[in-house]
């Protein structure tokens, strides 16, 4: 790969200097290696970062109030309360996200898809579905890996239903969404989301397994016999794991921040302008049709999990029923069109239809149950 950026004639001299500076810093950083890897430096750095984090965090609400007071908008107007929601939630959610993603990055360094497969390969259905759903929460997984992962699992002898439990749990119980729900909405909703997400993944996978649909896989998947890999076991030190946490922050926060700002903007609009009476009539517990409507609306919608949470927060604040809101959120996250298009490479249309139907029914059941329990 040639260093295209430097050769490009369109670059101004100034940006060349920046690139050269970046290079120099990079070289310096790699020379400072022994220092960078000392556990003491890391612990000290993390302690300082945490103190700064909390100091900043407690200032967010006063700052948002102050900023709104500077505007000419009348106190308590819809506009002022929208702006305050936005100004308060944007830094708050981004800061929380950074913390949650860092912690999860460290936790995830203990899991890998290869190890998960090795654990699941010997499992029977039932217990296997439970293990798969649980591992799905923590195993690092990106949707562009969905196909290799699916094929890798099935060809290693992981039962189809167990593979589906994993494939449903992995996107649906998103650890970022879980952390944000916990911080923004409260532990009860967060725990319920976790519990019901796991149940849906376990039961849906089990049902799909019982239907014995192996014949509905694409033909090449049925015939494939994967070779054995023996990757050298990675000996990760704690510094490596903390570094993995930092990498996760760079990658995930760098990728989802605009989803979050879009989500907060929608949340702020709901917070300021949508009348509570209207919302509780449409999304309240008494409107039975609101749950299926929420699931149907959620299927074609695709948003990063982190972007949905501010909307969830605003909807709940306006008196929408918890079950309806959770059903909407799960449908947006778990049933995404792009992922289905990717999975079409290994699954027949019939199998995708079964997958969507089973998961959608599970989400419906959760929505109704929840509204009945908490209204």
């Amino acid at each position, binding site marked *: 790969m040639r260093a295209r950026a430097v050769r490009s004639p369109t670059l101004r001299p100034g940006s060349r200097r920046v690139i050269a500076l970046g290079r120099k810093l990079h070289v310096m950083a790699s020379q400072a290696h022994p220092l960078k890897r000392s556990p003491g430096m890391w612990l000290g750095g993390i302690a300082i970062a945490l103190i700064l984090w909390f100091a900043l965090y407690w200032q967010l609400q006063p700052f948002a109030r102050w900023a709104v007071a500077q505007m000419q908008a009348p106190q308590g107007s819809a506009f002022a309360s929208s702006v305050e929601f936005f100004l308060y939630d944007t830094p708050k959610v981004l800061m929380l996200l950074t913390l949650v993603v860092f912690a999860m990055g460290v936790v995830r360094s203990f899991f*890998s898809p290869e190890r998960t497969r090795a654990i699941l390969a010997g499992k029977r259905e039932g217990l296997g579905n439970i293990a798969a759903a649980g591992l799905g929460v923590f195993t690092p997984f990106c949707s*562009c890996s969905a196909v*290799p992962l699916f094929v890798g699992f099935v060809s290693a002898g992981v039962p189809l239903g167990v593979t589906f439990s994993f494939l449903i749990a992995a996107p649906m119980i998103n650890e970022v969404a879980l952390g944000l729900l916990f911080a923004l909405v409260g532990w009860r909703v967060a725990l319920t989301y976790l519990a019901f997400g796991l149940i849906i993944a376990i039961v849906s996978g089990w049902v799909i397994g019982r239907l014995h649909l192996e014949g509905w896989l694409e033909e090449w998947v049925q015939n494939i016999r*994967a070779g054995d890999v023996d990757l*050298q076991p990675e000996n990760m030190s704690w510094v490596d794991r903390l570094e993995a946490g930092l990498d996760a922050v760079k990658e995930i926060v760098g990728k989802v921040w605009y989803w979050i700002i879009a989500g907060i903007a929608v949340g702020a609009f709901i917070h300021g302008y949508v009348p509570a009476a209207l919302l509780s009539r449409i999304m309240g517990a008494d409107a039975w049709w609101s749950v299926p409507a929420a699931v149907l609306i959620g299927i074609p919608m695709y948003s990063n999990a982190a972007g949905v949470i501010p909307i969830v927060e605003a909807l709940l604040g306006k008196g929408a029923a918890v079950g309806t809101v959770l059903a909407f959120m799960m449908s947006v996250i778990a049933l995404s069109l792009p992922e289905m298009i990717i999975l079409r490479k290994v699954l027949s249309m019939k199998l995708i239809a079964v997958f969507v139907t089973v998961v959608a029914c599970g989400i419906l059941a959760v929505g109704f149950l929840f509204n009945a329990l908490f209204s």
Partner: protein
Amino acid sequence: MKQVKVLGPGCARCKTTEEMVRAEAVRLGVDVSVEKITDYEAIAQFGIVSTPGIVIDGKVVHSGGLPKADDLRRWLQA
């Protein structure tokens, strides 16, 4: 001459991995031929579960996520 295969359907990280391999080989002065494998069936036959993966002289050395620069150097010099 080392035969390096980069396995990945073509996501951003797979492309970055390929660039990293090439750059590191040039830097070390190691003679390599880098081949990109994007076909799902071919990828699956190597037995890896997550992409991008790296295969050097027929042996899978890496799977999932970007490789570390240190590891890359080790694999290419081995």
